[in-house]
């Protein structure tokens, strides 16, 4: 990847359009994403928020009929503009999904998976990465005595934190989170939210959430999507106290959507 730019932006999305076959799913999206900030994406089901987040690491390319135009500039390089090394891109832009999805391997191997793919073989180096990643997600104390135990034996909340650790092990710049707590109980949800607040010191985080309180608690910026359009992007305090667009107001107050 190119060297990080001096600007505050890690992503600069310009005039992004996306079609699934004939369906125009994202319409003229212009969206700067600042470094070391949490950006929350909200909107009703089918508004394009998950589609949007999956464009940021080109996971969207796995959908066969997808067509995109515009620019997604990541650290100054348009990832749509040339043949992209997807493995390299996803090393820098990690992703965590709705439900914890550990590999059917040990806790250790789950976290070491990414670094191994990227060629790290030395056990000492891998050990360091695994420990650091597990510490970063506040899971180390809970699993340090059972690193070789199956990851699937962990609770739902622990599995999700393990998946975040797995994403962090490749030392990404950006962490994408697609409804990371929708399958978790309130306590596990709060742990993930606290984790997000800690992680933003080091990482840029983009989180899709249906939970308005979560968006208002953890994010610096909030974007509201509706029917494939970015309706409003502003500081979270503005969006939740005095949004500019009546459609944003209607959605966040639960009056439509």
């Amino acid at each position, binding site marked *: 990847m190119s060297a990080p730019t001096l600007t505050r932006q890690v992503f600069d999305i310009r005039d992004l359009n996306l079609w699934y076959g004939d369906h125009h799913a994202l319409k003229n999206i212009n969206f700067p994403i600042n470094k070391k900030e949490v950006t929350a994406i909200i909107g009703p089901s089918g508004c394009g928020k998950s589609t949007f987040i999956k464009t940021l690491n080109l996971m969207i390319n796995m959908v066969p009929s997808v067509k995109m135009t515009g620019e997604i500039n990541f650290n100054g390089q348009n990832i749509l503009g040339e043949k992209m090394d997807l493995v390299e891109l996803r090393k820098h832009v990690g992703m965590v999904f709705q439900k914890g999805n550990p590999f059917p391997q040990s806790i250790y191997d789950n976290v070491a998976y990414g670094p191994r793919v990227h060629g790290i073989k030395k056990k000492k180096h891998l050990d360091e990465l695994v420990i650091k990643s597990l510490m970063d997600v506040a899971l180390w104390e809970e699993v340090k005595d059972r690193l070789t135990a199956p990851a699937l034996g962990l609770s739902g909340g622990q599995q999700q934190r393990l998946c975040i650790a797995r994403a962090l092990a490749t030392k990404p710049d950006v962490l994408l989170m697609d409804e990371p707590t929708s399958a978790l109980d309130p306590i596990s949800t709060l742990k993930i939210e606290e984790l997000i607040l800690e992680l933003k010191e080091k990482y840029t985080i983009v989180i899709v959430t249906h939970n308005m309180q979560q968006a208002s608690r953890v994010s610096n910026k909030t974007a509201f999507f509706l029917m494939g359009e970015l309706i409003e992007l502003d500081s979270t305090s503005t969006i939740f106290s*005095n949004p500019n667009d009546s459609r944003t107001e209607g959605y*966040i107050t639960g009056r439509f959507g």
Partner: protein
Amino acid sequence: MSARANFDNNLKELKEMLLEMAHKSEQAMKESMVALLNQDMDKAKKVIDGDNEIDDMEDAINNKALLLIARESPVATDLRKISVALKVSSEVERLADIAVNIAKSTLQIGNEEYFKDIIDIPKMMGMALEMVSESITAYYSEDIEIAKKCAEKDDAVDNMFGDLIQELLSYIPKNPNATNQIIQLSFVCRFIERIADHSTNIAENVVYLVTGKRINLNE
């Protein structure tokens, strides 16, 4: 039907409770002035006794508002509606306290004959009550223009207050026996000036409710 019909009904109820409280406070202020002018001790005592009911109404509004915050997690306009209801109820409660203060001054003066006709104080009270009425109307109709119109009158009340205080204090040397009533009437002037201030605060809250912006209408 709105997905939040129940919440909307509760917000409406909160507003209605506040309007009823404001109506009672307005009545208390009017009664306190009548009691002062007619030196009607019974009426003054009634105003004082009636304050508990208004305090209870404020408690009920606060409890309902906090419950709505806890249960509905309001944001944006909804949150402003609730926070403004809390603020306005506090201002209205202070208005009722002012009615009590005027009634207490009436009791302090007692049946001692006024040393002169009381003409300007009810005029000043009329202006202040007009502001109260406008500020509450502005809150009810969420109308910024009425709120601004209300606040514009504050300077006139302030000026009248300054003039009246000077005039009242100037009477003391020639009417030393009336010192107590002059002091009490000065207090009443001060209380009325505070009515105008509370009305202006309500008007500012209306502007915040509608626009989300805090402005000082007193400048």
